[in-house]
């Protein structure tokens, strides 16, 4: 029997058993549209949120992730897909500075490199008395004081400012220079980072630094957070609460999606069984008239494939219409959000492929069963 003839039979069967096939289609449409709707809503909500996190960043270039960790561990996170990684200076070691036993806790200390932006800014256009920071003297125990601060605490070049670590060790720094500080943004003290870290190391501390990573794609955040967590590094963003809440929603929706997809597979399987059982005597009559089992089964394969494709098209439209309401709800809850519509074409395609595979599998099982059955027995029973 030619394929064209199989098509003709399929059409005839569709016409003659409209109700059966209409009910099957309805069942398929309802289950597939539910699945697509869930996938659609899930992806749209997540994408919208990720966009939202970008929109409210100062630079708008990505999601900012903050974490503290020792420098030594930097190589361990080399493989992470950060788009940018900034070092934000070392963390506070809880120590305090003093000058002639007076606490300097209210003053601001900056740890600078020879060519760091802060130090260059200090030097630029400023009049500095005393020694300037160079590569050669960067390990010397020098400290630079602003003119205003030096007047306030009464220190001069050559005086000593001491730093007491929490473990009791004290390091002393000699005032190497005094600079004019007309710009109010300038700090009160500058210390060479080389010397400072040398002392920290001497005191037996591990250097823990603040890092800021920028992720252009915020979807990777949860993964990166988990990777860092596995290395005992805590990461956070300004949207952690939202991320946690959405992760929960995401898990819930994805679980629902999986349940719906499994149900859809059972529905496809059972619909085929219903159709075959219902039309078994017809299949056997076709065999009696000279059709092969393959011919007879192909008729239903064509019908089911058509029903499946149409169901996916209708489900796609339905789920899209429903998702408009999701959009309205999300925009109502977060008015400033820019709703991003997800592309669910991949779900439609994957669904079609999986369901077709199930179709072929069931057809094969059914064909084997039909081949084993005696035509006369079925005709007699039917």
């Amino acid at each position, binding site marked *: 029997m030619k394929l064209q*003839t199989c098509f003709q039979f399929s059409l005839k069967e569709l016409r003659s058993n409209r109700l059966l096939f209409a009910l099957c289609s309805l069942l398929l449409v309802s289950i597939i549209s539910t699945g697509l709707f869930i996938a659609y809503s899930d992806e749209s909500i997540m994408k919208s949120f990720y966009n939202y996190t970008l929109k409210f960043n100062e630079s708008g270039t990505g999601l900012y992730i903050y974490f503290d960790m020792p420098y030594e561990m930097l190589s361990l996170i080399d493989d992470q897909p950060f788009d940018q990684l900034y070092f934000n200076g070392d963390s506070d070691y809880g120590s305090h500075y003093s000058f002639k036993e007076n606490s300097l806790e209210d003053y601001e200390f900056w740890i600078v490199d020879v060519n760091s932006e802060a130090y260059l800014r200090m030097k630029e256009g400023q009049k500095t008395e005393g020694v300037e920071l160079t590569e050669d003297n960067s390990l010397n125990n020098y400290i630079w004081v602003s003119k205003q601060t030096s007047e306030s605490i009464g220190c001069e070049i050559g005086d000593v400012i001491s730093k007491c670590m929490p473990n009791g060790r004290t390091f002393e720094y000699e005032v190497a220079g005094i600079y004019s500080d007309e710009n109010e943004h300038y700090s009160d003290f500058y210390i060479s980072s080389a010397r400072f870290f040398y002392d920290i190391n001497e005191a037996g501390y591990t250097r823990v630094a603040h890092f800021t990573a920028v992720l252009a794609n915020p979807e990777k955040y949860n993964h990166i957070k988990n990777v860092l967590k596995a290395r005992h590094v805590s990461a956070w963003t300004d949207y952690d609460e939202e991320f946690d809440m959405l992760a929960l929603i995401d898990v819930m929706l994805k679980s629902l999606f999986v349940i719906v997809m499994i149900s859809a597979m059972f529905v496809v399987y059972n619909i085929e069984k219903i159709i075959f059982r219902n039309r078994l005597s017809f299949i056997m009559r*076709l065999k009696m*008239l*000279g059709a092969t089992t393959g011919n007879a089964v192909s008729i239903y394969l064509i019908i089911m494939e058509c029903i499946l494709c149409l169901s996916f098209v209708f489900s796609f439209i339905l789920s899209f219409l429903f998702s408009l309401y999701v959009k309205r709800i999300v925009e109502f809850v977060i008015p400033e959000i820019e709703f991003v519509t997800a592309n669910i074409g991949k779900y439609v395609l994957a669904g079609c492929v999986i369901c077709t595979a199930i179709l072929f599998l069931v057809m094969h099982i059914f064909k084997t069963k039909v081949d084993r059955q005696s035509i*006369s027995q079925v005709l007699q029973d039917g």
Partner: protein
Amino acid sequence: MIVLDNVCRTFRIGEELVKAVDHISLKINDNEFVAVVGRSGSGKSTLMNLIGALDHVDSGSIIVNGTDITKLNNRDLAEYRLKSTGFIFQAFHLEPLYTVYDNVRIALMIADIPPRLQKEKVINVLKKVGLESKNGVKVSKLSGGERQRVAIARAIVNDAPIILADEPCGNLDSLNSGLIMDLLKTLHKYGKTIILVTHNINDAKCADRIIELKDGRVIRDEASDLFSI
């Protein structure tokens, strides 16, 4: 020619094994009209189903025009049923929701006859069985006699040389039975081999030869004019 050699077919009914056909050997010539008679459960229908390849033998061989059909694969069996046999059943086995025309056309569609020829052949065969005026009527709307005539039309539309009729008049009144038997006789006249399964001795008398079965065995095989109850 159809040659059955030591054919056996056993069914399991519950715990019991029933020999429906028990070592039957017989020959049926081309263009012969054979009636198979016997009581219910004697194995008449099973024998017909085996000859028509609607069932398979447990042992023995059935050779139709030189081909042992018990050794054919599924595809070749389908080809055999398509080209060599036409079936008529007591229960008609028609598609009730299809029209008369479509029910007959099914056989031509399976044979991949070009659509333009299909119409011509269906109309011709419906004329032969006297149903040309009902070709657009759904089978579910026809009387028993008319349905059986549709079944006959479907059985002969592909010009199969062997017609297997299992109690074709079982559900019909005497008038319609007469019509159906006349049709079978006409088919025989046109050169078909007819194997008629019946428990009605009057119908069987229309055949050239009557084979009587009991408990799956042939107990009598003689010309119909010699056959007496």
